[in-house]
């Protein structure tokens, strides 16, 4: 069976330290003011004057039905067999259609190179057997990366255990039918 790369965030472990964002920037020379992954903060006021603050990591969801792939006029953005949505820089003409098409706001325009840019799941870093840079550096061990078609992979086990323990497992905006591949695990 083909590999199918995916990532799971155990978001209760996230402390919003932004190490992932900077590690990714270093790995890929991401232009100064942009990041390929983010952590957002949500704050709710609950009963009795209590507050609740949640941290939400995000990046390209490597969707099976990716709107960015659909709108790309040059087929620069494409779904690889291993599940990664990849931008072929030699085909990208910088038309930017893909940027607003992404419901996850995962893309930006690289002004220096004139191409659309986003997370590649650290291809080809992962080909050397390493984890993506964000997962490697994460002090909270939030991020689990791997092949969900392999039942022995860490991500498969983590997702299996989450299901067994009746933890919440969800994805972002599944209602849009994009079939994203980033899993959120929460107690």
């Amino acid at each position, binding site marked *: 069976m083909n590999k199918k790369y995916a990532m799971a965030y155990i978001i209760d472990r996230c402390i919003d330290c932004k190490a992932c964002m900077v590690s990714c920037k270093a790995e890929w020379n991401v232009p100064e003011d942009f990041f390929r992954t983010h952590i957002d903060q949500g704050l709710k006021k609950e009963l009795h004057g209590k*507050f609740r603050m949640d941290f939400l990591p995000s990046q390209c969801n490597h969707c099976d039905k990716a709107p960015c792939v659909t709108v790309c006029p040059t087929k620069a953005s494409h779904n690889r067999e291993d599940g990664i949505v990849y931008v072929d820089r030699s085909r990208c003409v910088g038309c930017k259609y893909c940027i607003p098409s992404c419901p996850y706001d995962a893309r930006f325009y690289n002004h220096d190179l004139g191409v659309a840019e986003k997370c590649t799941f650290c291809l080809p870093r992962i080909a050397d057997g390493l984890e993506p840079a964000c997962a490697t550096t994460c002090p909270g061990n939030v991020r689990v990366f791997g092949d969900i078609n392999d039942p022995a992979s860490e991500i498969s086990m983590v997702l299996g255990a989450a299901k067994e323990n009746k933890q919440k497992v969800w994805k972002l905006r599944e209602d849009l039918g994009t079939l994203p591949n980033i899993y959120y695990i929460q107690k």
Partner: protein
Amino acid sequence: MIRTRLSRRRFLQAASAGACIMGLPVLKVSANSDKESAKSGVSYSQNWCEMCFWKCGLTAKTVNGRVQKLEGQAKCPSNYGKLCAKGNSGVFQLYDSDRVKYPMIRTGKRGEGKFRKATWEEAIQYIAEKSVAIRDQYGPESFSLFAHGSGEHSFMNLIEIIGSPNIAIPAFSQCTGSREIAWAATYGKPVGGKEPVDSDNSKCMMMLGRNIAEALHVGEVQDFVSGLSKGAELIYVDVRFSKTAAKANQFMMIRPGTDTALLLGMINYVISNNLYDSEFVKKYTKGFDELAEHVKKNSLEYTEKETGIPAYMIVNACKSLAKAAPSCYIHPGRRLSRYGTDVQFVRAIAVLNALFGNWDMPGGFYTPVKYPVKKPHMVSIDHHPTHDRADGAGTTFPMAPKNLGLANKQLEAIANQDPHPMKALFSYGTNLFHHQADSALVEKAIAESELVVTCDIYMTDTAYYSDVVLPESTYLERYDPAIVTSRKEGYIQYREPAVDPVHDTKGGWEIAELISKAMGYTNHFTAIEDFNYVLFKEAGTTEEYMKKHGCIVKAVGEPFPRAVGERPRFFTPSGKVELKSSNIEALGYSALPEYTPVPRPSDNEFRFLFGRISYHTHARSQNNAWLLALHDYEVPLWINTERAKKLGIKNGDKVRVTNGNNTSGELVAKVVDYIHPEAVFTPQGFGHESTMMTRMSGKGARTSDFCSNETDPISGGAGLQNGFVKIEKV
């Protein structure tokens, strides 16, 4: 659901340049030409991170002579393979165009920012000639040094060679000093820089203003997250809802400066409701009955009134800790330079911990395991300073250690030239204008000095006022003597350069040796290589091993001796945990932890509070573009919603703080419900005066312009949080 991420800075740039960008032909780069496929010329080198002071082990990846990426060493117990945002941004710092690139000698007035480029020979000669003249005229004790960082011993040795005792490590008086004194008074030893709290196995953790998730040290936070994920309860006390609060089961917003009252109330509740470990108390502590009597006045009603925390929450906290005991702890804190009453505050923490019997127990406190090795000396010094310290460490403040000194008192001694002339001021890796309490006093001290020398990698505010600025190589460009560290295991860490110096810079050891020789001293400075050779041989390892792994770990001791039946030893006068401290009593202060109310701001003022955020260290990292991009180059000022409303300030407004003497640079109002109305908060380390820190010069508030300069009478440590400010819109 996700906000658009086009950064404000980029948006402004794009808007102004939009028309021409749109007309430009698109630059295309083939996938083959970018580094995603480049593999040639890859090398790896070992190091420990110097972006903060936790010293995470890291491996630097260098591609074609350029450092590309830093990654944690998987087996280093400081960080087990992980790095934080600051650590990851070390690459940017290395190649930052704002670094000091060559030695500089001042040409204008101090603080005017006018320098000329100098050669190393010139700069060293200049320092040596002036130093010799000052030494001969005023005596060796007129030299002072403020030093911090892995290379600090280089300049410390230089000043010792010259013969001055006036060497201050600001990490004591400005940071952990009062904590260490209080802990030693109770348990017979200080907490230590790598706090031995066993968060990993803890069932209940309580923190008072110890914002562990943001004032972040990787190893410590890993244990913290691991403990939480295993179900540990977190009780968090602060004046604002920080990212640590986000992880808390119970967040208690406290009125600033009343933490000791809270703790005494808890001690009283724990004792009067028999929630303490009576066996531990009986066997290992001294002064319990007097303590019980002493805290009787701290009823729940009084505690609630004083702290603003509802009584039921206080009861819950006591019960949770007692239920988890001994697998629980109350964190001793990190920067304990708060209100000038910090020894008594930490004494209360120490005492409450003792009541839960968590010493040397899993989930409580562990005993760091030492790597059994004797460190050789880098420099042979055959004489000791004959003079007393000018700052009173060891004399006026008998409990303050002479080897660390009191940076706050040393600065006063220089500014007032009292008790004797202090004419040569050296700074290694420190920044007086940011870690000291009073910027006016810093200016006065510099004005009184005939020679001011700074060794740093950036033109910091202190460098900006210096006569000579000596550019140091960053940690990625230099060797340093290997370090020996203790956590649950003992380990040794290795540093080697990842690249040759990018600019005309040198390491601290080489610089100190050059100055020493130019002054005519013949003391032998050991080559770092030789030092390492001896150390590694003693430790049973080799340079080859260290080059490959960066870190050698030896687990040769038990971090929880009491849990395996060993009797703990306390090096206090009584040999017991001193709930009532005889050392403090001997100094004439309350031997039982005591609460002293702090001054309060008037109705139109705010208490000026500051601290670290997840992605900046002290005043060192605020020019790093990779980190600045994380917060859009804006410096927040947290203000309570109700108070802001009265001042007509809305979220996102540009504001300044002022205290009559000083007015800050621009801050961005972060108007929130979850900060105590009495206080404002801003991240430390902004408000740089130096125009050569180009990205953030003038932005934000320099804390030394607004904080207080209290002195804890027992430790001599600083108290920075009694400063009051007003807010005005820009």
